[in-house]
């Protein structure tokens, strides 16, 4: 048989089985379809759009803060408003943008990269989205009532406790994050189950794309990192509302307990955000280097190692609280060690490019920018692992510079690169390469102008989170430069947005595989049909879309992989990806939406202290879950060992 590419393989599969499978995967339009859909692609896009809206809002808050800080002693906003702005900016960027955005990528891409037709729990997926949207709504709406969180994104007690924080600001924070945690946990479990049970036959774990690995690692981290955060938030809520004393030092509580619980979540959360972003890089680099990623096993090991070691470094956020030196020495060592997995990944991308044939596409430009920024954020990260240096510049603008290099450089740049890379797949349209290059260049310059000077103002002794500063302390010029840079950055992001939006109207229709991509999502149309693949591929290698035998498996349609007798996916074994059985998937339903609305009302009731509403809405939500999970006639031939999947 002659050598084929992903476009041809897709066309062959489509013509042999497309119509038969499509009949079993209907898509409903209109408002009802919009509310009831459980299609992972629609939910994934929705996650990304909503997260982008929250990103824009949180970004505008930063813009106001930078305008306030452009000159000394400015009075653009009141101190109280400024404190709400930076608290909500951080909270929103971390919780409402970064993780949900990457979950959006994951939701869209997991089934496509794994060669299946949906996520393992499609309804849970829809439920997670609605919860996320509702949590964001509560948190941003609070700003309109001057009740936005104002205790900083890590909300240290006692400042956030009942005595020093009146008003609902911190209740918005605790309840909002508890509510959002439901969504994040549900998403994480869904990713783990999908990656372990729904991979195309033949896709052993050592053939799983790195992006999938990273998001699975992230999901495991979520499962272990969120409980401390949820515990802390529940305790703080009880301290504030019911007068308990978990964190009240005068009554025997412990203020440092909050810091430990928060950072036990908070530092892993950095990797929860960064790992999948690195996964995006590991998807883009091979495609535009025309070779599979170098040292794949090491990259996967590095990812898993980061997920494990990430739980042993949290105290480096607390080096200045006066802990014993022995424990500082331990956490300093762990913080140093965790840079090695990051180094492995950076040198793997470099090796891939240095031994490949580089195609300077727009996504690769964003990745190149990412590598530079991430290394700068990484080297300052090593500096923060040094106890004395950390004690000197923590809580100064130096740390603000550091974590923006890590989180914007390390996550937003890959996300934007990923948007340009998968845009044809998401939307079916090609973007303008020229506009994309401009967007990248201006964003890159603007970012560095905005954040590099903060290293210097930090070294010059400028603390973070101050709403204003006196003149003549050597900070003025750097602060002004940052503010100018933020405007350039904003311009770059606006060009990015315009490039993407214009492509929706004017972009050329995208072929299935516009880039010559490495992984399976490129072996189906752009955007993919509801059923993703007319024929479920049989995977024979790591770079599945470059592997002739894998592509041929789409052409030689074997009925066991067409599954045209139902709304079905293929269940495979966890390690080797061996076929177990076909599995019927759930249809569209409004139940997740209804359950999320009731939970939303319950949270609003708790927030406003309308206990009647809270109790009734919780009860209604519980009834909805019971309805959702009620066993309705076992499907044929399902043995007890094989559980339900909805």
């Amino acid at each position, binding site marked *: 048989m002659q*050598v084929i*590419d992903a476009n041809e393989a897709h066309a062959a599969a489509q013509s042999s089985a497309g119509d038969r499978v499509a009949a079993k995967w209907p898509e409903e339009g209109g408002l009802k379809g919009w509310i009831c859909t459980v299609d992972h692609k629609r939910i994934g896009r929705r996650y990304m759009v909503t997260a982008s809206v929250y990103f824009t809002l949180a970004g505008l808050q930063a813009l106001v803060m930078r305008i306030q800080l452009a000159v000394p002693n400015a009075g653009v906003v009141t101190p*109280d408003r400024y*404190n709400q702005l930076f608290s909500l900016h951080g909270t929103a960027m971390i919780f409402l943008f970064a993780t949900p955005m990457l979950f959006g990528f994951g939701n869209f891409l997991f089934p496509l990269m794994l060669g299946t037709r949906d996520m393992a729990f499609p309804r849970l997926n829809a439920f997670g989205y609605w919860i996320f949207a509702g949590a964001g709504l509560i948190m941003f709406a609070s700003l309109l009532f001057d009740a936005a969180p104002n205790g*900083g994104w890590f909300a*240290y007690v*006692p*400042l956030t406790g009942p005595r*020093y924080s009146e008003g609902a600001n911190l209740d918005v924070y605790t309840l909002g994050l508890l509510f959002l945690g439901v969504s994040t946990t549900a998403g994480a479990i869904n990713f783990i189950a999908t990656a372990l049970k729904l991979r195309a036959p033949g896709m052993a774990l050592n053939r799983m794309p790195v992006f999938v690995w990273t998001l699975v690692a992230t999901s495991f981290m979520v499962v272990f990192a969120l409980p401390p955060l949820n515990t802390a938030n529940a305790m703080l809520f009880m301290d504030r509302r019911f007068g308990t004393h978990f964190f009240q030092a*005068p009554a025997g509580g412990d*203020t440092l307990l909050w810091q430990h619980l928060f950072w036990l979540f908070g530092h892993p959360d950095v990797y929860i955000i960064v790992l999948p972003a690195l996964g995006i890089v590991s998807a883009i680099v091979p495609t535009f*280097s025309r*070779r*599979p990623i170098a*040292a794949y096993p*090491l990259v996967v090991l590095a990812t898993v190692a980061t997920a494990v070691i990430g739980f042993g470094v949290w105290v480096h956020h607390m080096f*200045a609280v*006066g802990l014993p030196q022995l424990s*500082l*020495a331990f956490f*300093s060592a762990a913080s140093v060690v965790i840079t090695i997995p990051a*180094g*492995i*990944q*950076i*040198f793997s991308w*470099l*090796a*891939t490019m*240095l*031994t490949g*044939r*580089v*195609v*300077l596409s727009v996504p690769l430009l964003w990745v*190149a920018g990412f*590598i*530079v920024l991430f*290394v*700068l954020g990484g080297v300052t990260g*090593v*500096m923060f692992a*040094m*106890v004395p240096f950390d004690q*000197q510049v*923590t*809580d*100064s603008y130096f740390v603000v510079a550091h974590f923006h290099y890590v989180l914007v450089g390390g996550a937003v740049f890959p996300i934007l690169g990923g948007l340009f890379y998968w845009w044809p797949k998401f939307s079916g349209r090609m973007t303008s390469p020229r506009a994309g290059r401009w967007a990248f260049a201006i964003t890159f310059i603007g970012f560095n102008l905005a954040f590099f000077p903060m290293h210097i103002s930090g070294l*010059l*002794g400028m*603390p973070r989170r*101050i709403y204003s500063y*006196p003149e003549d302390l*050597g900070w003025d*010029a750097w602060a002004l430069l940052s503010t100018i840079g933020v405007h350039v950055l904003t311009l770059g992001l606006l060009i990015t947005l315009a490039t993407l939006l214009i492509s929706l109207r004017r972009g050329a229709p995208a072929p299935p595989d516009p*880039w*010559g991509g490495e992984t399976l999502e490129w072996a189906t149309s752009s955007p993919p049909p509801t059923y993703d693949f007319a024929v479920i591929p049989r995977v024979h290698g790591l770079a599945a879309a*470059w*592997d*002739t035998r894998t592509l041929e498996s789409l052409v030689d349609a074997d009925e066991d992989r067409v599954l045209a007798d139902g709304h079905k996916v293929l269940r495979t074994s966890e390690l080797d990806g061996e076929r177990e059985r076909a599995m019927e998937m759930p249809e569209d339903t409004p139940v997740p939406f209804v359950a999320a609305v009731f939970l939303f009302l319950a949270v609003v009731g708790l927030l406003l202290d309308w206990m009647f509403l809270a109790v009734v809405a919780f009860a209604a939500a519980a009834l909805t879950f019971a309805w959702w999970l009620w066993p309705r006639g076992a499907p044929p031939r399902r043995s007890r060992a094989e559980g339900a999947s909805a």
Partner: protein
Amino acid sequence: MAIGRPMSTSRRRVPAARTRTATARVARICCAGLLVLVASCSGRSPSTLSPAGPGARRVAGLWWLLFGISAVVSVVVTLLLLWAMIRRRGPGVVPHPGSGTRFVVSLGVIVPAIVLTFVYAIGLRDMRALEAPRGADSLVVEVTGHQWWWEVRYPAHGAVTANEIHIPAGRPVLLRLRTADVNHSFWVPQLMVKTDMIAGRTTQMWLQADRPGTYRGQCAEYCGLQHGRMAFHVVADPPAAFTSWLANQARPAAEPREAMAARGRQVIQSASCASCHTVRGTSAAGRRGPDLTHLASRRHLGAGTVPNTPGHLGGWIADSQAVKPGNQMPPQPLSPEDLRSLIAYLGTLR
């Protein structure tokens, strides 16, 4: 392996000469930036890079070491990246799938492991060096953070002041740090690394200035509304001057000599001032606000917010909310004469 169709290969290569001038330009800009950085370290800037005490000096040394290593790492990675992007393009380049593991293991594991071990050892050495100096005679100063000012006590001498900490130059001083409300963090960038003040605990650190001088410090842990206006100054005095300063601060307030000042003392004792402020030697003994016994000897008002001049003092008393919104001192509706005599009295409290 079937690789997808090639991308457009029409892009021209960047001429090497142009790259070189660009590199030179970048180098020039970096140098200029460093010069500006060094220049801005002088003057009044509380810069960590112009250390004035042994603690901060050690950390500044650590910074330059880390900066050097970081610069090398960043430049090497960037050059490798640019090399790949410029030299590994075009139809003539043949990919080598499968290779690269040795490169990753050597540059991504072995070299970093060696460098990081070295850096970690240096970090530990410097951490131990910042421990309290052994056998130092211990002048103890208690500093208590309040929303949003600093209470300063010299327990062995009975002196109490606020927002201004005098220490003898050239001698280590032990600070005991507490908070009266929320967490704060004590930071004098030119002298020593910061230490947090944690509710319900006492932390400690030591402070030493090489030479007499005034060093600005500021709260470094977000502590609420006026976190941005919670500064203080450390004044390192020559030893003799320090001793006389301390003796003076320990004394009660001087008797007013003029009628106006005497009336001012009446005001402070009878108006609401006394419920929050202490003037030792009078009946004003409130504990919520700063001790005013030697207010006139201090350089700033409102935790570094405005200079301590009669004009600013009057403005502060009449309506400090206009100067530092949200601070805990309510506006004082005093008659003009009361206010003037109060300012006159406070001006005598040297």
